[in-house]
């Protein structure tokens, strides 16, 4: 993914052709749709072609969606005609214009184009929906983007003939959104789907198996969230994430004020509760922590990982060692590479007179401490690093992770040139420690 300003550019016709050509060749989904379009809908006779009508000066005002100029529309139509060798229909033009505008970082035009294509359109509908979601991310409209991507994935589940690249791209963008918003539990579900579909790249696997070891409070993530917030300042999820980023920046009093305000607005929201507890934990303010956690619902397996973590820290602080073991064990079940959970368990076991268990957790942490910097080395270019990571995973009995990283290594070895992910990673590798 690249982050660029939405300033429009004026590419040369040659560049436009090249662009569309690249788009058509690179985006399998688009090619599929074009192919399917050619099979299922023969071009109408020249005289009945709506786009040929649109090409006439007298038709420039006909049915143009909001945000799309006649000039853009005609330009896309011409381009389509040149590329496909036939006259386009309205959806052809809108889809082409959406792709073109995306390439030119003209996100508003792209959004208007994709949005104007009905979901029910048999050739473009789903793909346009997915791209509409993606464009909304570029426009920093996170909640709307998430809604569209989730809608796409729901519809895609009932469309077996949809190219896997389309679903793949949607899941990656959704994963990206959830990363920025620090919604790691929900991201894990998406990442599991990506893995189940056999579409995971190395970075996906790192995010799935080692979420606790990756940098979450990068300046990049923070910057992205702020852009999202500018577009949706009242969104609860974004604001809870904002509170956590403030904590991550060490602005604890600002975080406290922010999260307390949102806690008042969202008294039953567990992510907000967890973030406020984290803030008090970082401030080492156990009086405030005690008061807030007293309002927490009973623990369950579906609660945010952060809340479980905070329950464990609370139990440790009050020397309720067995309870701490329970909370941190639960956390370790949902996130087996959670270093902080291992640390908490080690402390609790030591106090419970179980030195062997305590030491076992310490040793586990030592391996995780080796894994954490090693994650940086594990890339799509280095099968050896992936194998080494797999070996470390085996030591931790993270067998699924070990299997996945071995398969990555084999894949990279087998076909180094194809090692790159088919879609861009939602977060850049610099977000890894």
């Amino acid at each position, binding site marked *: 993914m690249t982050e660029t300003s939405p300033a429009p550019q004026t590419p040369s016709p040659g560049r436009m052709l090249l662009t569309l050509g690249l788009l058509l060749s690179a985006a399998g989904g688009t090619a599929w749709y074009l192919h399917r379009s050619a099979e299922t809908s023969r071009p109408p006779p020249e005289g009945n072609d709506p786009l040929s009508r649109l090409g006439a000066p007298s038709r420039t005002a006909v049915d143009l969606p909001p945000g799309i100029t006649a000039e853009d529309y005609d330009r896309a139509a011409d381009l389509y005609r040149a590329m496909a060798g036939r006259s386009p229909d309205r959806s052809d033009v809108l889809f082409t214009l959406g792709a073109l505008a995306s390439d030119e970082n003209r996100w508003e035009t792209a959004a208007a184009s994709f949005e104007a294509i009905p979901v029910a359109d048999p050739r473009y509908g789903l793909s346009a929906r997915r791209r509409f979601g993606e464009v909304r991310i570029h426009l920093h409209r996170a909640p709307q983007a998430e809604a569209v991507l989730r809608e796409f994935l729901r519809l895609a589940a009932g469309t077996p003939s949809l190219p896997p690249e389309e679903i793949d791209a949607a899941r990656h963008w959704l994963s990206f959104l959830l990363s920025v918003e620090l919604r790691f539990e929900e991201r894990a579900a998406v990442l599991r789907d990506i893995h189940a579909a056999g579409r995971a790249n190395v970075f996906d696997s790192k995010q799935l198996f080692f979420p606790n070891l990756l940098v979450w409070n990068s300046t990049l993530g923070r910057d992205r969230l702020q852009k999202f917030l500018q577009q949706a300042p009242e969104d609860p999820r974004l604001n809870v994430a904002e509170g956590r980023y403030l904590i991550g920046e060490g602005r604890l009093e600002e975080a406290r004020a922010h999260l307390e305000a949102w806690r008042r607005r969202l008294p039953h929201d567990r992510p907000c509760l967890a973030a406020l507890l984290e803030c008090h934990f970082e401030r*080492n303010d156990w009086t405030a922590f005690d008061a807030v956690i007293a309002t927490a619902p009973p623990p369950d397996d579906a609660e945010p990982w952060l809340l479980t973590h905070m329950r464990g820290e609370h139990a440790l602080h009050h020397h309720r060692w067995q309870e701490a073991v329970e909370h941190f064990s639960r956390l370790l079940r949902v996130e087996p590479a959670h270093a902080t959970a291992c640390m908490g368990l080690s402390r609790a076991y030591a106090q419970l007179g179980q030195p062997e268990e305590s030491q076992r957790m310490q040793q586990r942490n030592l391996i995780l401490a080796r894994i954490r910097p090693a994650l940086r080395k594990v890339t799509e270019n280095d099968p050896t690093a992936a194998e080494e990571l797999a070996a470390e995973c085996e030591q931790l009995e993270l067998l699924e992770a070990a299997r996945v990283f071995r398969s990555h290594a084999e894949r990279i070895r087998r076909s180094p040139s194809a090692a790159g992910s088919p879609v861009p990673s939602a977060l850049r590798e610099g977000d890894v420690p």
Partner: protein
Amino acid sequence: MTSLPRRSRRPGRWLTVLLCLGWCGCGNRAPSSPVDRPPPHKLASEVPSTEGENTAPPSVAPTATGVTPSFAIIGAEAGLDFQRFDDITGQRRILETTGGGAALLDFDRDGWLDLFFTNGCRLPLRPDDRDTPSELFRHRPRLSFTRSTTAAGLTQYGYAQGCAVGDFDADGFDDLYVTAYGKNHLWHNNGDGTFTDVTDVTGTAVLRWSTSAAFADVNGDGVLDLYVVNYLDESDRHPRLCPNPASPDGYEGCSPALFAGVDDVLFLGDGAGGFVDVSSASGISGHPGKGLGVVISDLDGDGTPEIFVANDGEANFLFVRRGETATAGDPPPLQFEERALLCGVALNERGFAQASMGIAAGDYDANGTIDLFLTHFFADTNTLYINDGGLSFHDGTRGSGLGETSRQLLGFGTLFVDYDNDRWLDLFVANGHVDDRTWMSPPQPYAMPPQLYRNNRNGTFTEVSSESGDYFRQRWLGRGVAGGDLDRDGKLDLAVSHQLAPSLVLHNETVTRHGGLTVQLVGTVSNRNGYGVKVELVGASPPLVRELSGGTSYQSAPTPELHVGLGEAEAATLRITWPSGTIDVQENLAAGTWIAVEGGPVLRSPLTASSTPPLTEGSSDSGEFRGR
């Protein structure tokens, strides 16, 4: 009670030292009294172990005093015109990032601390490159400096990194060990104002990328040993580069995670001026870390030092001496066990190995044990490891005031510094990024402001950087930091090495009613510098303990002296515990600089604020060397 020295390998040595001090430590200045002698020292058993008559009432207060710290920049106008050359290029090689260090040592024994800064050079290394030597500055009191590198014959070329100060041959003159990417060098102080490269004859060459180093007596034989921290495996001829098309120069800095760590080296002094590499035999080898900082300190108070190494992105090391017993007639073998994880200093509270750079060591919470503070990477916190005794530490960063204030900075050199002499250890941190990421969107800061924290006397700190002087309001690529009382006014000053900016002295001009004691240590049975000495303020409540630790900070050598803030007291009684086991109790020491000789008297240095009038430029020092 004064214990007997464990052995008396050099009988009568302190007398020799005294004789030497009598005429070589005074310069040509006429002190108000040649050597102010305090009352004769007493045995520990002869003084009350509770509050003494010279000790102020307990000074525990909910918050610190309102003393405003003030540090003034001393640089080129005072003759300190040095800027380290790192050969920083657009390739962003990892070699360019570590910067250099500073040392404070009185190489000419005139009583005034001189300065040494390490320098880099062009990369790849060329044996004939003589363009950028490390530099020695002679202190021409007060706070005026003369470049003395050439005159001293200290021809330290190459890509130097850090330095350590120690009188390894116990001849009364501090020697200098300089680490480098390339060959490290040991420079013997000849006692006549010059140095000789004795690297090869002493067997102390290390041909790895060394960063910090520390002198200390790790095996308790009264001879200084040398620990050398090595960073990672990298080539100057074929450096690893990390392309990034988005960067203006096409590269970004490579993460240390992409490199292999290397073992550190431990040299034992052989007592005859040489060293023996015991890294393998002692168990130091086999732990390839990515070391940047080291402190050698008696962390469990059992009289033998531990070696703590700060590793970059990997678990830290704590080498603890094993308790082997001697076999018939032989001394026990020197064996270390790496126990950082068990002791709670390998990983932070979250279980993460942090990118550790510099180390401050000191009893910040006044409970009699040495705590450790480590500086770390951007978007992470610095970490305060609180010593709970018995080699057990816990991460006390949260709530200390040190965590949240460090998250948007990247720390290197750091020292506990009681800047206002209130008896409580305050904290200095030099900051600066390793990679210019100002081109990124969003940008990360490259140069960064340094930080000064006031100890609140309740386990927490308050950052007071903004009120501490111009230096703290500017941004720097801070690296090495050394501390010492340069102008002998009883307050600790700092020397800071930067990248892409001149190295500086920060003169402590804090106005405080509290006096400070500086104690220069002269070991006779123990090592000559007194590394490992613990000084306690008798009767102080809470306890005040200062230790002369080996190493600390980052690639730098704080002066081998101990500083004790007197707080409200006019004078103090000190219990000095030497590594040999000797305990000296020195009573009624007023503010100023004192010379404490193991098993002997304590002498007042003539270079004391109360005894020496302010000197004007050129009035005090002919510039001649005043050696033995």
